[in-house]
């Protein structure tokens, strides 16, 4: 006999898969979008350290790459904290969808 829907629920509502929120995309919340301007990037990684949404991708060498737009909520902390190069920001915020 097949089990009822509620019989399949995990006992005590325990979540068994660690980090499963990665399946829940929050990128759709964004109204502003960070733009990475690589030539102005000094790879300080402040954007990575201060991102509340773990949405700055870093490669095996420890260098930042493109944003993870599946999760970036567009808060703009990265852009504000970006020191840039010679006064030119490596991250700027743009209106989403434009």
């Amino acid at each position, binding site marked *: 006999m097949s089990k009822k829907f*509620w019989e399949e629920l995990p006992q*005590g509502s325990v*979540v068994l898969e660690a980090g499963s929120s990665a399946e829940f995309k929050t990128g759709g919340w964004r109204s502003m979008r960070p733009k990475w301007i690589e030539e102005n990037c000094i790879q300080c990684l402040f954007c990575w350290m201060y991102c509340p949404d773990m949405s700055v991708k870093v490669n095996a060498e420890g260098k930042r790459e493109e944003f993870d737009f599946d999760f970036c909520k567009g808060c703009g902390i990265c852009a504000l904290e970006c020191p840039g190069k010679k006064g030119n920001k490596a991250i700027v915020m743009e209106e989403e969808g434009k």
Partner: protein
Amino acid sequence: MGKIVAVTGNEACAQALKQINPDVCAAYPITPATDLMQRFSSYVNDGKVDTELVLVESEHSAMSACIGAAAAGGRVATATSSQGLALMWEMLHIAAGTRLPIVMPLVNRALSAPLNIHGDHSDGMGARDTGWIQIYSENAQEAYDNTFQAFRIAEHLDIRLPAMVCMDGFIVSHSIERVEYIDDADVKSFVGKFQAVNPLLDIDNPKSYGPLILTDLYHEYKRAQHEVMTKVPNIALEVAADFEKMTGRKYGLFEPYRLDDAEIAIVVMSSAAGTTKDIIDNYRDKGVKIGLLKPRLFRPFPYLEIANALKDVKAIAVLDRADSFGGYGPLFSEITGAVMSMDTKPAVTNKIFGLGGRDYLPDQAEKVIDELIKVAETGKVENIKEYIGVRE
């Protein structure tokens, strides 16, 4: 056969916990349960158990620490009474909803106000809907025996629910009675090794306990929780059968006393059942066909089984050692619930007795029985609910 001793209910329960040797106990003192954990503390400090005893700053933290410890993955116990249980109230639901098999002797005591330290069931009845298994004990022997059985039921892999083992404050917790202890080796094999389910301490397989569950799943989780409770009676009977094999002492979902040919019956829980049985014997000697039903498992409540046991009686008096102000006593509500499924609808009365430790004396039982005889004859109940033993 185990050793025969003269001990109080608290002492017997503390001995049971010592023999079970839980991994963690977190507790806070409260009369009349204080003495239980106090005795257990000396077992800890004398190295007689392996338990980590967490001496918290409140019952709320006691239950919170028990919940953390149980989720971590080990055997957990605590004990409390009255206000202590009331302070735990929030956490009782969380222990049950999280399916953590914590075992807690509850030394039943009245709730404030006015402040009172003596025995009644208002604490336990207030926790009726928390999702805990509740087992009520008549005397020290039963409290001792039920403690072992509670661990087996609570920790059963098909159950995994917390359980309270209730005994009457002072009347049982502080009275010295004859108790037959079970040998340590027998306890060990009866209770068995604790089996962890999704332990937090399994750090290589991280789990998250306590998610937010909103409208799309909460209802289903509660449905599942109810289902687990419905499995408890069968498991409790299996465990009781094993227990009987070990000790010769028989336990059921409830205890019927001279009920087979009874025409009238009293339903009463815990220590008051002992007094009532004596009076019933006197009436039996006079030819009155009266019996008693003493619920043992109050949650889950065995409605159908109790209905079947009471199917031939004409009138029932339900004695509640707790009240629901503006409503009927909690046990009365359950018994009338059971009566609903019966073809014969006996007349049922409700007597509130013994609040705040007020003595339940033989003459109170006699008055109830005399009235019950009349009710059975006439089929009429004048006052459904009435206080007995009250000064007027």
